[in-house]
């Protein structure tokens, strides 16, 4: 796993300097601490920070084709590279490394952008065709690996992380008001943008081509769902069998590495299933890692221990204390590069640190299963609300909501009020966004804290309209669950979970995550499975549970779903974080950043300090405001001082200087 960065100067300007490329690479050195590589010619500079996982000796990037006219930098893994390589060798391509990187380059030579259809993996890449003077950028189907770009004057600048782009001094650094509106509604930015004005994200499943001053972006893949008549007519038993087979192969190829591969183990169905497949088929001594919490409401220790005992796993865990979560939030925001409405990324950051300290670079995780197999409560909620909407006056139907949220409904006194809450908007069942409107409306309330200036800058922008316009052809013909799955996957999984709870918090400690549930073959197959089998009655992930029978203990398969969450108010409004929280939320800090209304934030602060119990909304507001303040301070005001000496972090660097026709190995910044 690695970091990539680069500049394409359409006119071959002088701003393209080796020093800038070094700084752009060095600032995300944690993505690839093992070595660095830089390519530079009159038009293009490419930088690469490498975490060596496959072909440890000769896989140094950038990598070139036979006649050195094409160069690639690449962050990721393509798991089916041995099979692809064999075909390319038969076609006469010669290889000078055993890496997957070189396979992609030759495949691109062979097929152009269509090569992406053949890749099963997680990646962000850049290929420079020096003959055509064309730059090709691409991102994996679902967005496991990040890639940002911006156009500035006659240049295109891109990188795995925004901070690398900001190392080019001329690039303006501003918070984008519309992106703030998106995060404070959808919990994340929508595809294609970042929290920073004019810094774009290449959306998942897209590629970009730049040549002669022109930039074009194309979609090559979308999350597969089908109308009923195009779905499979197999029995649940046959479907589960097929899933078992596909998942086993997805795990098998994700163990391909020249370093040991570990696994995250939470005690939930998804990570337990993956780890069991590893232990029972490939590596009985796999290292596993888990998170523990101080409070029972968050902790899954009982089930985690159950799995450790069952698998006889070589397991390590961290205790994510409230104190540590509060203290680490700022560092996590530096890595996530966007405001968050949750503290849940923090424990994952602490966990990857433990993995690194244990000498492991790669872990399998269970992320993606809830989206693909229908695991989230929002899916079941949608199903119940759809059922309820057919008879809105029913007194029995709303009772089903209580079964979905036992932790909210644990106070029986609130039953009627809560049911009324979930009964809002039942008449909107034909709205394409029906499944998510309750969540988004509820979240959107925290926009009340926005300052008047921010509200004015957002103007009449309507995020719902933007989402509706971006929906794929055929969406209207899918059933309610498929639509909800599409929204959840394309918005929340790709833009939040895979980033803030995925790549960023793992790479912060130089850890690569691999996600078997997001194997494209598996997603394609599940897209054709009828919804009635995905959630049977109200039993979520029915197919996955069925396919794990006999592999996992029954109490793990049948346990109630435990949503992964982390404490918020307890972490931020007590202990070590308190002082810096006060500082970030002081009237001066708030007025400086100009994003929030200090008087309102003060009321929220007083409510929480005076022992008021924070509601879900208060908690979201608290983290949202605090993390926005951190982004504004660290990326706008203090960015230059924060990144002043990054070049010192550059490891051994190989430099291909095509301007001066010399290649050499630089030691730190001495050359």
């Amino acid at each position, binding site marked *: 796993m690695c970091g990539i960065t680069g500049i394409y100067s359409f006119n071959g300007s002088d701003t393209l300097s080796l020093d800038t490329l070094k700084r752009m690479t060095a600032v995300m050195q944690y993505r690839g601490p093992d070595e660095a590589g830089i390519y530079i010619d009159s038009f293009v500079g490419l930088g690469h920070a490498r975490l060596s996982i496959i072909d440890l000796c000769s896989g140094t990037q950038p990598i070139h084709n036979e006649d050195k006219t094409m160069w690639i930098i690449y962050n990721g893994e393509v798991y089916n590279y041995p099979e692809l390589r064999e075909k390319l060798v038969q076609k006469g391509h010669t290889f000078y490394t055993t890496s997957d990187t070189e396979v992609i380059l030759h495949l691109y030579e062979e097929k152009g952008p269509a090569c992406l259809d053949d890749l099963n993996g997680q990646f962000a890449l850049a290929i420079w065709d020096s003959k055509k003077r064309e730059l090709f950028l691409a991102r994996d189907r679902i967005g496991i690996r990040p890639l940002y770009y911006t156009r500035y004057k006659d240049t295109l600048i891109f990188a795995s992380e925004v901070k690398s782009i900001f190392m080019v001094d001329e690039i303006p650094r501003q918070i984008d008001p519309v992106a703030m509106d998106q995060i404070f509604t959808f919990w994340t930015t929508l595809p294609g943008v970042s929290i920073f004005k004019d810094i774009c994200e290449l959306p998942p499943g897209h590629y970009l081509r730049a040549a002669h001053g022109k930039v074009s972006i194309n979609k090559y893949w979308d999350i597969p769902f089908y109308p009923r008549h195009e779905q499979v007519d197999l029995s649940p038993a046959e479907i589960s069998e097929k899933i078992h087979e596909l998942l086993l192969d997805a795990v098998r190829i994700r163990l391909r590495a020249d370093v040991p591969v570990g696994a995250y183990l939470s005690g939930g169905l998804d990570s337990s299933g993956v780890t069991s497949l590893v232990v029972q088929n490939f590596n009985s001594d796999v290292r596993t890692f888990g998170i523990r919490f101080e409070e029972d409401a968050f902790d899954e220790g009982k089930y985690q221990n159950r799995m450790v005992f069952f698998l006889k796993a070589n397991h390590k865990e961290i205790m994510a204390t409230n104190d540590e979560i509060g203290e680490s939030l700022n560092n996590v925001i530096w890595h996530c590069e966007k405001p968050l409405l949750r503290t849940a990324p923090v424990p994952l950051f602490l966990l990857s640190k433990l993995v690194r300290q244990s000498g492991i670079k790669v872990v399998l995780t269970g992320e993606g299963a809830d989206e693909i197999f229908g695991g989230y409560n929002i899916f079941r909620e949608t199903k119940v609300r759809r059922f309820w909407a057919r008879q809105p006056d029913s007194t029995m139907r709303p009772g089903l909501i209580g079964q979905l949220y036992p932790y*909210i409904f644990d106070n029986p006194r609130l039953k009627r*009020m809560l049911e009324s809450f979930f009964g809002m908007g039942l008449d909107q069942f034909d709205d394409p966004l029906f499944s998510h409107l309750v969540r988004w409306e509820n979240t*959107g309330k925290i926009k009340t804290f926005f300052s008047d200036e921010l509200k004015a800058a957002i103007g009449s922008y309507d995020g719902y309209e933007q989402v509706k316009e971006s929906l794929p052809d055929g969406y209207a013909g899918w059933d309610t669950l498929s639509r909800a799955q599409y929204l959840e996957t394309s918005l929340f999984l790709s833009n939040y979970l895979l980033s803030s709870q995925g790549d960023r918090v793992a790479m912060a400690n130089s850890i690569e995550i691999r996600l078997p549930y997001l194997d494209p073959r598996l997603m394609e197959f599940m897209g054709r499975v009828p919804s009635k089998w995905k959630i049977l009655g109200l039993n979520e992930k029915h197919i996955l549970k069925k396919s794990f029978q006999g592999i996992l203990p029954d109490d793990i398969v049948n346990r109630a779903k435990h949503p992964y969450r982390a404490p918020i108010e307890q972490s931020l409004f007590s202990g070590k974080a308190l002082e810096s929280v006060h500082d970030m939320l002081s009237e001066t800090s708030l007025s400086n950043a100009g994003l929030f209304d200090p008087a309102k934030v003060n009321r929220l602060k007083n*409510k929480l300090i005076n022992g008021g119990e924070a509601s879900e909304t208060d908690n979201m507001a608290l983290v949202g405001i605090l993390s926005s303040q951190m982004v504004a301070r660290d990326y706008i005001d203090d960015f230059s001082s924060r990144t002043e000496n990054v070049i010192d972090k550059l490891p051994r660097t190989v430099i291909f200087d095509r301007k001066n026709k010399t290649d050499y190995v630089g030691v730190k910044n001495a050359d």
Partner: protein
Amino acid sequence: MSNIETIRGFVVENFLFGDGEQLTDDMSFLENGIIDSTGILEVISFLEETYGISIQDDELVPENLDSINNIAVFVENKLALVPDSQERHVG
């Protein structure tokens, strides 16, 4: 201060963070997203503490709690049933 003003003050301070200009006395909290699914707990504690009333399970329904007016009527009815508490807690 009238009950309506007291209740209004609480809702504006705790759920609208001071921004009460748009809030009318008959506005539904649920329909307008003023109080979320957990916020209702705060309302109940506030009413019980401020008015010294005890709210029964079957009284926790939108008809009693879903707007300033609904709450005010509900509280007045409750207080009428608990004559002793009226002088102690109101105002």
